[in-house]
């Protein structure tokens, strides 16, 4: 059923009309035109659509719009003003990306990890990031970038 929702994204409140089951992923991409959050699988198995919900990394393809009242959502567009979040800087510095499609989700997961675990062990990183798939195979560089961001943040 189509309803009106008020949703807070990157500290700004948006009014949207959408099917109550429409996942946040498609609200972001198709209604709000915020395409940094990527569609990868739609079943919560790849992590490409990762955003922060009240600071925690979640898969936006699994979050219906009707469940977001009062929640604070951060997308990659809101992670930093100028792309200068320590994780983003480390990603550029370590030259992580190949095709780059999964990297929004990887970066959002990494930022959430470092917020709660400022000095993660290798095992912490591997376990936390396991939900984010990269077919190009940039995992070792992702780990290096997270370690670098940890020491600089």
């Amino acid at each position, binding site marked *: 059923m189509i309803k009106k929702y008020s949703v807070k994204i990157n500290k700004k409140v948006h009014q949207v009309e959408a099917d109550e089951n429409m996942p946040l992923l498609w609200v972001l991409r198709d209604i709000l035109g915020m395409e940094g959050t990527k569609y990868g699988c739609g079943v919560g198995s790849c992590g490409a659509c990762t955003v922060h919900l009240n600071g925690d990394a979640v898969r936006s393809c699994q979050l219906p719009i009707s469940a977001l009242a009062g929640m604070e959502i951060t997308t990659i567009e809101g992670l930093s003003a100028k792309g200068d979040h320590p994780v983003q800087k480390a990603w550029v510095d370590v030259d992580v990306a190949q095709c780059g499609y999964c990297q929004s989700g990887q970066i959002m997961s990494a930022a959430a990890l470092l917020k709660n675990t400022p000095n993660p062990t290798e095992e912490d990183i591997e376990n936390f990031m396991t939900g984010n798939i990269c077919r190009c195979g940039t995992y070792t*560089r992702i780990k290096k970038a997270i370690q670098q961001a940890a020491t600089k943040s």
Partner: protein
Amino acid sequence: MKKTDSNYSRRSFLKVSSLSGGGMMLGISWFASAKPVESLGELNIEPVWQEVTSFIKIASDNSIKIFSPNPEFGQNVMTSLPMLIAEELDVDWKQVEVEQGNYDPKAFPRQFTGGSQGIRMAWKQLRTVGSAARQMILTAASQAWNLPVSELTTANGMITHAFSGKSETYGTFAAAAAKLPVPKDIVLKGNQSFRLIGTPQKNVVAPKIAQGKPLFGMDYREAGMLIAMTERPPAFGMRLKSFDATAAKKMPGIVDIFPIQVFNDDHKFAGFDTRSFNEVIAVVGKSTWDVMNARKKIKAVWEVAPERKEMGVNNRETTVPSGLESTTKHYAQMLEMSKKPGVIERKDGDPEKAFAEAKHVIERTYTAPFLAHNIMEPTNTFAHYVGDKVRFVAPIQIPDWIMPSIVARLGIPKENISIELVRMGGGFGRRAYGHYMIEAALISKQANAPVKLIYSREDDVSAGIYRPSYQLTYRAAFDENKKLIAFHAKGGGVPESPLHANRFPAGAIDNYLAESFVIPSNITIGAFRAPRSNFNAAAEQSFLDEISEYMGKDPIAFRLELLQRAKDNPVGKTNDYDASRYMGVLELVREKSGWGKPENAGKKRGVSAYFCHNSYAAQVIDLQVKGDQVTVDQVTTALDCGVVVNPEGAKNMAEGAAIDGIGNALFGQLTITDGRTDQRNFDTYRMIRHNEAPKKIDVHFVKNEIDPTGLGEPPFPPIFAAVANALYKATGKRFYQQPFQPQLKA
């Protein structure tokens, strides 16, 4: 041995035009001949050289824009190709801004992503572009200053006259340079003079990627754009009989639902016109979610499709069989075929006699399933059909290959078709098949609106164009001294053979036989990172490991012995590989991994090496097995791809190839039951994940002066066998069937 050098004509001339801002735009056109080479032949590439216009723009403020011609899918050509131009142009890399060139055969001679050919084919072309522009700017400065060109030097986008101390920017002379005739003789720098080539440079798009900017086809949008998806048969071997979309059309946001036919009935199929289903139901609506929901309400009736014929552009007819196929049956069919004589691809000496007289024969059969590409950005394309024109925004590896088919299907001239090339979220061969562009155009035409066609992940996995399912049976014959006297490879697949009959160990063994067979199928298959090689290497390098053990030889020493023979006294006239370069990577990986060193004695390690796409790769992997869990401690890769343009990008590519290969070797499989894929999304298709990636990857390049050869594909195939050989060390069990991990016991 085939020469792998390309030969460019020096009869080059440039095209120049002034820009309104007083700058210069420079391009180049030339006639060039490229000798057909082995990989080009494989891909059916006909090199066509046409007039080129714009690669470089220089503004009066000395800002420099370089257009990258090739579609980018993560191989980092948007950095490495402009580096070639910037090197000869003699500009500071920091002052260069790179932009993706759109599809324009008149402007760019080769917009092609595939076959690890990007740098190789551009190596002289794009440096020529840069050098010509530099010479013209020099001439313009010489005229303005009334000084001989011989007294002027260039560096970092500046022209300097050392005697007088005069120094000005390129931009100062750009407008004048644009009016000059084009130099006839263009001189390229010697490799020793490179200032940029060979230095590590970061991906020029990295900051945008890190900010999630809308770089991809999936991200494209414009006013009035609708979303489309397609509904297709649930199984290979089926087709649409009828459908009722009454309920689906009533769903919120739905604009229209109609069937489309991808290719005409009389279509002449070119090599990359593969599509899984020719008739699909298009669902067009306002949002992706609306369309996804409406798809579920379509009541479609599917039926088993009869056998059909497809006529190729070369008038070769292909028969696509009827029936609902299954992986278990494919494996049984391949095994049966392996016991019958195949088509002989190569024969040296008298292998039959040698096998008959052998004191011992080792025979092993290797099998692999279909693999789905699993490009992280699912298939998509934007199309807007207006009047008799269509505009695409498309992630496509080789636009030239789909253009004739778009023209044929839409019945409009190619001049009426424009393609904006967007960054691709992976490709690996999948986006060499541009049928989705035709689908998007047909939907836009029927819906009379700009449309973005999107495949769901389920569509992408279950209606793909897969790596074929393959089998290889090897036999090795030994005399009473355990000397290898004959070698036999029989390879086949669904529906193509993986065999490369003229590759190693052909040329190294006196008695050699290679045979192939094929099993026709209605499962659609196509290029997948290092086609055929990705399985050949897995099987061949595992078998060589096993026979070296029987012979009591070190696996690297054994390979080097064979290669030494191929180098000194090759068997046969046509051996595709250069034995010296092959030996080079094995020696380098032996040194860098500390192979055979006492401190590594306890490690469970495997080695493998392979030649493909004109390059050589060898890998050593160290791993541990606990129950059914594999931990990869380290991968050491040695690569010979000639001169490395951008070592940072090249390392990233080789690291990724190792991870991708380990993942596919351990987990990758697409299996079929009654025509339906058993895996449909990442919850069922097992991909390698962070915790399974190697803890460490070292990449080493052979340093030489050879013009660049392939890089994207060569480090992918050998790692499969390195994994199998290391698993043997860890478990005492040989692995013949991919994927390997399900065979480990928890």
